[in-house]
């Protein structure tokens, strides 16, 4: 379980996030939507523990955290295998050989078995992102943080990576915070969604996607995506208006 309670964060005396509260239950996926610069990534950084909030509290019983960034963020001088093994090096229970075997198995699961000894520069953009996903899943994470990991990829590649992600989650369920600005992506993957808007960023709307993912057909996905799009469009319109109040979602 992960819970944000009244989180506020500012940078250089400018408040970015104001009074953010939400709760992510076990093995659920929460999509965070909103325009660029609203503070979506800041929420992930706070959840990962790389940023401290100015006020408010974060409750988390999650020990192993996997983070898939917008860019793959691989070490260019290490092979795909070494990049995945990197995050296992803290695990003293595994020998070096076991770590490498585990990393190789994860790369295989993502269809990269023939590319384990390739350097990131020798791989395509989609392959690099798959290595980054393998690095996150090899930890068998309790909490997964995804920061628009499919942006910049073409539609076919994005769709196949989303499918791969769902298969990985079926194999290893984890709580997931998924930052995106695409309503279509959110309704495909998430169980719940929150929308950030305003300046400073705050939660203005929340939405539950009750239907199990495997039962979601195209009409359902279109209808839910349209709802989210309408909320986002409404937020943009009211951006010029007053910015009072704060949203809470659980």
């Amino acid at each position, binding site marked *: 379980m992960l819970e944000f309670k009244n989180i506020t964060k500012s940078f250089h005396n400018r408040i970015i996030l104001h009074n953010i509260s939400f709760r992510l239950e076990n093995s659920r996926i929460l999509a965070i939507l909103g325009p660029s610069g609203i503070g979506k990534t800041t929420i992930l950084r706070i959840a990962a523990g790389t940023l401290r909030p100015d006020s408010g509290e974060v409750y988390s019983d999650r020990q192993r955290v996997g983070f898939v960034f917008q860019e793959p963020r691989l*070490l260019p001088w290490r092979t795909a295998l070494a990049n995945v093994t990197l995050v296992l090096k803290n695990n003293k229970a595994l020998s070096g050989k076991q770590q490498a075997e585990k990393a190789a198995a994860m790369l295989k699961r993502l269809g990269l078995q023939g590319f384990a000894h390739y350097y*990131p*520069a020798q791989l395509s953009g989609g392959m690099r992102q798959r290595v980054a996903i393998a690095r996150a899943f090899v930890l068998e994470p309790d909490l997964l943080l995804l920061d628009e990991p499919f942006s910049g990829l073409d539609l076919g590649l994005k769709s196949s990576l989303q499918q791969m992600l769902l298969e990985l989650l079926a194999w290893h369920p984890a709580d997931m915070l998924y930052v995106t600005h695409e309503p279509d992506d959110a309704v495909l993957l998430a169980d719940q969604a929150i929308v950030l808007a305003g300046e400073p960023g705050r939660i203005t709307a929340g939405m539950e996607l009750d239907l199990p993912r495997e039962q979601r057909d195209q009409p359902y996905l279109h209808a839910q995506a349209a709802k989210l799009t309408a909320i986002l469009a409404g937020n943009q319109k009211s951006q010029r208006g007053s910015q009072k109040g704060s949203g809470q979602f659980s």
Partner: protein
Amino acid sequence: MIKSRKKRSAYLWMALGILTIGAGWQWMAMLYGPLIVPSPSETLKAVFSLLSSLEGLADIYQTFYRCLIALLLLTITAVTAGMLAGFKPWLVQFLKPLNDILIAIPPVALTLLVIFLFGGGAVQTVAVAVALGFPLLYGATLTAVRSLDKDLLEMFRAYKISKTVQLWDGFLPAVIYAVLPNILLAAGLIVRLMVMAEIIVGMHKGIGPALSIARVHMATEELFAWLLIMAAAVLIIEGALLYLTKKHLMQWQAGR
């Protein structure tokens, strides 16, 4: 196809450059006579004679052995200092006066100062080369640490990667790869500085003393031969290091 044509054209221009120098040299030799400027053929004969004598080879060995020690010491001290300074801003300020002095002071003056303070000897020649090469590698390392990819540092923090793993898998390779071209430059610089230091310190063995003896004996063809050997050696060392660096680096930089 286009690449190989470009390469061939580059080699052709280089060969033309060498031929022009050779022609100019030959003209000077004819103008001034062999006592002042020996001809290229006489110099090449002297080169082969030096390279086939045990004494000549011993001189080359002595100088390059000292250069190797100096390069190793320089790399360890300057890269370590640069890395530490990159993480500890107070150390940058602490080392600034020393670094500025080493940049400003002429190499000859530093060599004379070292002789005055510590006397002559092989250790002193190595120390001079290390001290004079320090600002180049220290500055390059400092810049490399300062320009470390912030995104990778955030990735390390997000995955709670231990400091040791961060050092070995992140910082060291990033810094070494960024500093390698400067190590290459330092290698050439050290050979030049070493020969100068050997002459001023008054060593008995090495290219520096051999040059001195040739000058005293007015053996101009030998003097020119040593200069030719030195230039060729610097070019070979730089070329070999560049080849090794490129061969290794290009593996992970391929496709960039």
